[in-house]
């Protein structure tokens, strides 16, 4: 049984202007010890998905209107807040994008780590302190014992993210969700953090979900990838498979937008961006949501009329498009 099974999740934000359908029918699963990457541009709903899993969406105005999130056999959407609190930090943990604002500036690092241990395990003060030092060492913070009593502003960005990771793994969770963990960091630090996450995943046998807009990060860390667009998954496959044989026009565009430094297809021209903007999520179009920006969209195929289903095009490879790459006749310029 999968560690985490999400079925048809729908999270809507109820605002004055209408209901924003931020997550509109998302399904995926995560296995223990494996990493799922969720990739997409800003506003596609990937972060809201992650927050919905943890039950951390702001209750007004947001609400999970449909779907189930089955974690270790229990449906998290049906649990009480108290039960969810017991699971958060203990079985399921999350790290966020901006380590600068995600740590409380007025509390020492030590406190922010030990309070998790205290909450879930009732550690004594000394034991908690010792464990905290171990955790900092595990996330490779030099001179851990000395730095334990520092405040967050004494740490650099990369260090702070490591602290966040230490807090997250403190209780040995089964699932770690990382929401854009490297976006706010320097490129060199990014690689270190991703390596660290990968090592931790293996050592602790955690399932991991990495959310990012950076295909490079996906290539580095994910075993499986789900591509999201406008609140829905448009393609899902094993990472290598996705990179080798992308099917959805959006995925192709994302991969095509990557700057290439070497290889046979080095493009000498401009970076190719995807023209247009994502649709308004209050009143999403009835047809395929990517259609206005899709070079293969076709009136006669009903692209703008009916939303394509997410279907299996090969084993383990799902796509939501009427014109996946392998079914097209002509190759566009």
């Amino acid at each position: 049984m999968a560690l985490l099974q999400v079925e048809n999740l729908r999270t809507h934000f109820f605002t004055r202007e209408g209901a924003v359908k931020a997550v509109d029918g998302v399904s995926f699963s995560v296995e223990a010890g494996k990493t799922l990457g969720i990739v997409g541009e800003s506003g596609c709903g990937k972060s809201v998905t992650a927050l919905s899993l943890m039950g951390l969406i702001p209750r007004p105005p947001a609400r999970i209107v449909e779907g189930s999130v089955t974690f270790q056999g229990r449906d998290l959407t049906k649990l009480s807040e108290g039960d969810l609190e017991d699971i958060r930090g203990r079985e399921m943990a999350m790290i966020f994008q901006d380590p600068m604002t995600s740590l409380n500036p007025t509390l020492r690092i030590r406190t922010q780590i030990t309070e998790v241990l205290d909450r879930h395990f009732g550690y004594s003060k000394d034991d908690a302190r010792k464990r905290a030092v171990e955790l900092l060492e595990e996330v490779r913070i030099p001179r851990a014992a000395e730095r334990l009593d520092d405040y967050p502003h004494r740490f650099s960005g990369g260090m702070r993210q490591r602290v966040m990771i230490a807090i997250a793994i403190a209780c040995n969770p089964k699932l770690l969700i990382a929401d854009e963990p490297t976006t706010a960091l320097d490129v060199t630090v990014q690689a270190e953090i991703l390596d660290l996450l990968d090592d931790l995943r293996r050592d602790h046998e955690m399932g991991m979900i990495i959310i990012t807009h950076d295909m490079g990060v996906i290539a580095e860390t994910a075993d499986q990838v789900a591509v999201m667009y406008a609140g829905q998954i448009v393609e899902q496959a094993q990472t290598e498979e996705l990179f080798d044989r992308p099917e959805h026009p959006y995925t192709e565009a994302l991969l095509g937008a990557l700057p290439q430094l070497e290889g046979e297809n080095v493009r000498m021209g401009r970076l190719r961006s995807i023209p247009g903007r994502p649709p308004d999520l209050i009143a999403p179009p009835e047809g395929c949501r990517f259609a206005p920006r899709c070079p293969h969209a076709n009136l006669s195929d009903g692209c703008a009329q009916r939303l394509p289903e997410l279907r299996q095009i090969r084993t383990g490879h799902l796509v939501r498009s009427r014109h996946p790459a392998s079914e097209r006749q002509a190759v566009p310029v």
Partner: protein
Amino acid sequence: MTLPANPRDAVATGTAAPDVVAGAGAQAGAPIEQANLWRDAWRRYIQNRGAVVAGAIFVAFVAFCVIWPIITPYDIHNDPVNFSQAYEGPSLKHPLGTDKLGKDLLTKLALGGRISIAIGIGATLTILLIGVVYGSIAGFAGGRLDNIQMRLLDALYGLPYLPFAIIVLAIIGTNNLWTMVIALSIASWFTAARIVRGQIITLKENDYVRAAKAVGARWYRVLTRHLLPNTLGILIIAIFLELPGVILGEAFLSFIGLGISPPDASLGSMAQEGREVYRVHPNVIAIPSIAIAVLVLCANFIADGMRDALDPRTRETKEH
């Protein structure tokens, strides 16, 4: 929704269907378009019911104070004193009653309101003027000059406001509208200066300032063309934040007898007159005090409404 043959062309030629309603006037990377900013702010302000009501009441009261004395049948200054009609309660002839000299309280209220509001606005504008000058020099110059100015400001903060104003009044000698304005503003411009300085410092780091400097604009041009217009929003809010303080300050001074000398009377002096007899005739002190409270309340609400309106962050939850 029509599908263009090639979406790239459509976008390039501007015929692509707009699918996201972008914030009015906000193109990525463009500088703030002033006209749209104000229109947006106005629209947001209107949505705030409290602020709109407060604004209406405020304007109505000011209008009353300005117009009523012109059309009133009573002439407070020249009508003969009429002790037999002193301290009457509300009636058709005198909707708010009369004071100890038999004068109509409604008219006195309007006149008092005129003075209080005039002092309030006068002092507020003066405060802002001093504050803008001091603050923009400090913020813009930075470095040593800023440091000195701020230390000076810290020291000035140590001056007790009321005693200071009292002493200034004593120096000037007379207590008329202008001297009150001066006394009150000299004692309270410090916060405004700080706010302006803070704002200038924040704005100074913006790229469009650097761009202006890179093009060779002189400092005063940068200051007046780029920085100050963008502090306008904060300044307007500051007006409605300082106004209550000044009105209350003037009320306090008048109440302890150091206000405007008769025959001119502000709301505070009216209250002071009613002080001795409040047990028997509470309306003499209550009416001007309530008027003061209403003015202050409205100013607070308006300030809040403006602050919300001019703050570019939207209230709807954003997902990233």
